[in-house]
């Protein structure tokens, strides 16, 4: 009975969301009564929908295997935590969660925005319309409420073992939260275009929401990267997997967007960019959903495929994107600013970087699309891999970092005075050069791009140290969160450069009780044991690792075979030190009884995630400080 109620509530809320859209667009939105009506309708509809999701969670926790989806993805023996996370382990349920998040953003916006806000009604209207589109998608093509008749299975199936990991249970929700968070920026820019009054300052409102959404998106990507590293056993932080790419594109667009916003919320300059970017960010998020859920691309992330779903999503996303671009094109004149961008001002650097970010997005899109176009025309499968992306990303990112470096000294609407000798830039450059020379001889690095990224990263970090000094000692006003975020960027490019250059791996072929040397470490194969877990059998290899100084530690990589699906997974063993990870996985046993083990030394990999954390925290604090300033 409960499942029918949940199903019904979802249908009901779809109808109410649609009403909400109708009210906000057909009635005059300057009337306070109308705004109240829209706001109330939205919150009621939201509550019904969330109730439906809560019932669904209750059903999953209580193993109601009458529900087809729960029966297919959960099992009676799973811990309760995974019973809940099994909801988003496959297409239908994760789409359900995706829409829940979409409506949560709308509800939070609705709750915290006063009814005097001129764009509120239409913004909620756009959010409602988007929700209706996806709710219909859920109900018509991927219904999670479907029931198995006549007799439900007793034990259920099982969640994919790769997904039985606490990190994975939270990685998709974070990513979805970031993806759909840009619906508010999108809604506001559409509302702004529909209203067509250039004096409305929508940018100020949007900044807060976009920073929060950006932080979630960054967190989702960082968690995904970490998960691939330690659970999938991929042994790195980024693989240019198509689905990583479709998450990276909205992130790049969102990064350009929040920078562009900081310009156009001060003056009307760059409005065209900001508006176009707000549409682009959300479109790319939706494009990501389309790519993953239509099954077009084979990847660890793809869901079971169904062309009908792809077609529906394509039609709905196409409708949203093309309508918004037509609107944008129609209202082009209200976006044009008569102010000119002064060369070498802060605005000029941000707009140059917008172009560079645009290039990165375009190239990534090209990398994702090229195999599809090739397959379409020549009927052959090819793949675009890391060399393509590295060739583009490395130089362009470094170039963008250089412009970012100059923007530190530049001022709004003023030409940058290049006065090298009175400026801390000279000191920061000297310090950066010293670090580069030190690193070059200490670690014997000769690769130009690695040294260039260390140099530029160090310039940014040391330059900001002066700014922090001014802020703390001379009490000079600065945006401290922007500084920490950009120090994060400096750390990120240094860490990536060093990781890329220093990391090494080797496959060892080793018998029990033998030992072998690699990279100044001695690896001794101590023991091999068979262990049974709650729903799997596993082989665990114990290795004693000894460094040059004689310190010992143990690494125990593992291989599991899960009962229900017979799937085999590798569990990595990682020894973490500040500057490097020692990372082991076991492969197969050979005929002579020896085992293949893979050993990797991953340098500075923790620093990559650390810098992401720095950016996330900065984003959240900056949003918080903006909301304080506003109220």
């Amino acid at each position, binding site marked *: 009975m409960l499942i029918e109620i949940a199903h019904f509530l979802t249908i009901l809320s779809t109808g109410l969301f649609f009403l909400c859209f109708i009210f906000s667009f057909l009635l005059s939105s300057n009337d306070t009564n109308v705004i109240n009506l829209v706001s109330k309708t939205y919150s009621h509809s939201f509550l019904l929908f969330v109730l439906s999701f809560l019932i669904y969670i209750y059903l999953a926790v209580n193993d109601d295997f009458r529900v087809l989806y729960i029966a297919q993805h959960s099992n009676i023996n799973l811990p309760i935590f995974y019973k809940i996370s099994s909801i988003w382990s496959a297409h239908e349920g994760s789409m359900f969660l995706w829409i829940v998040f979409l409506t949560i953003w709308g509800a939070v916006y609705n709750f915290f925005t006063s009814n005097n806000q001129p764009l509120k009604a239409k913004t909620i209207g756009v959010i409602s319309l988007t929700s209706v589109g996806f709710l219909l998608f859920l109900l018509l093509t991927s219904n999670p409420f479907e029931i198995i008749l006549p007799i439900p299975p007793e034990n259920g199936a099982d969640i994919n073992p790769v997904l039985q990991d606490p990190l994975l249970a939270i990685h998709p929700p974070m990513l979805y939260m970031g993806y759909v968070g840009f619906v508010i920026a999108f809604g506001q820019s559409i509302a702004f275009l529909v209203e067509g009054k250039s004096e409305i300052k929508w940018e100020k409102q949007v900044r807060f929401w976009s920073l929060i959404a950006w932080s979630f998106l960054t967190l989702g990507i960082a968690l995904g990267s970490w998960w691939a590293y330690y659970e999938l056993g991929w042994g790195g932080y980024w693989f240019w997997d198509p689905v990583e790419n479709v998450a990276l594109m909205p992130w790049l667009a969102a990064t350009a967007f929040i920078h562009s916003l900081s310009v156009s919320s001060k003056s009307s300059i760059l409005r065209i960019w900001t508006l176009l970017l707000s549409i682009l960010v959300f479109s790319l998020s939706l494009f990501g959903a389309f790519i993953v859920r239509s099954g077009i691309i084979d990847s660890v992330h793809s869901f079971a495929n169904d062309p009908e779903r792809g077609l529906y999503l394509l039609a709905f996303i196409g409708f949203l994107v093309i309508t918004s671009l*037509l609107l944008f094109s129609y209202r082009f004149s209200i976006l044009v600013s008569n102010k000119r961008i002064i060369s070498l001002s802060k605005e000029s650097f941000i707009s140059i970087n917008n172009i560079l970010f645009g290039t990165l997005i375009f190239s990534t899109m090209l990398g994702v699309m090229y195999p599809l176009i090739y397959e379409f025309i020549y009927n052959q499968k090819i793949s675009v891999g890391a060399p393509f992306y590295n060739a583009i990303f490395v130089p362009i990112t470094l170039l963008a970092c250089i412009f970012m470096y100059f923007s530190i000294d530049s001022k709004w609407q003023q030409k940058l005075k290049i006065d090298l000798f009175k400026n801390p830039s000279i000191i920061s450059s000297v310090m950066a050069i010293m670090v580069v020379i030190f690193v070059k001889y200490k670690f014997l690095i000769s690769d130009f791009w690695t040294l260039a990224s260390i140099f530029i990263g160090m310039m940014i970090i040391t330059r900001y140290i002066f700014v922090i000094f001014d802020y703390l000692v001379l009490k000079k006003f600065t945006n401290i969160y922007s500084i920490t975020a950009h120090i994060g960027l400096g750390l990120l490019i240094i860490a990536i450069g060093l990781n890329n250059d220093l990391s090494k791996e080797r496959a060892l072929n080793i018998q029990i009780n033998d030992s072998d040397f690699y990279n100044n470490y001695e690896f001794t194969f101590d023991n091999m044991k068979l262990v049974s877990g709650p729903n799997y059998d596993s082989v665990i290899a114990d290795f004693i690792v000894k460094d040059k100084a004689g310190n010992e530690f143990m690494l125990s990589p593992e291989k599991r075979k899960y009962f229900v699906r017979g799937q085999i997974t590798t569990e990595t063993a990682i020894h973490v030190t500040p500057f490097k990870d020692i990372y082991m996985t076991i492969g197969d046993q050979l005929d002579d009884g020896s085992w293949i083990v893979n050993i990797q030394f991953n340098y500075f990999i923790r620093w990559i995630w650390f810098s992401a954390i720095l950016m996330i925290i900065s984003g959240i604090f900056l949003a918080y400080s903006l909301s304080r300033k506003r109220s």
Partner: protein
Amino acid sequence: MTFLLRALILGLTLLFFTFFYLYINEDKYYPGADFQTSDMPKFELYDLYSEKVINQDNLDGTFLINVWASWCITCRVEHGFLVNLSNQNIPIIGLNYKDEKENAIEWIERFGDPYKFIIHDLKGELALDLGVTGAPETFLVSNGTLIAHYRGEVNDMIWKDVFMPIIKKEGLFKND
């Protein structure tokens, strides 16, 4: 200039969506489908009910092999469609995959039997030779040659888009 810019943005977007529309509507869109032909592997397994030995010589003509198991929920979803197919006189041979005999028999009693006979592959030997990665999977076999393989649930749409084109092309099931 601004007109050009607007036209360019809209034009590129339209092109983008048109491409994906065309891409989706191509037949080869089903990643689960595989049309590489190979010979039917040799095997010796037991019939699920009679425990009679079955080998490759017991299979002749054109038929489907459907890999299923009582623990496989998707097989249950697929089952109704298979019953329909068998009512249309399409011969289906069941390959019961890594399953306990009692469970499998109980399952068939409960949900109906669309199969001509069922091969009991407890250890997944034949399945391994066939290249099965899970259940359900379905093979189209004609005169000792595997001509189509589908990983995942077969339903009306998959039957129409994946199996029917090759059945028409090869002129199969005409005499049945």
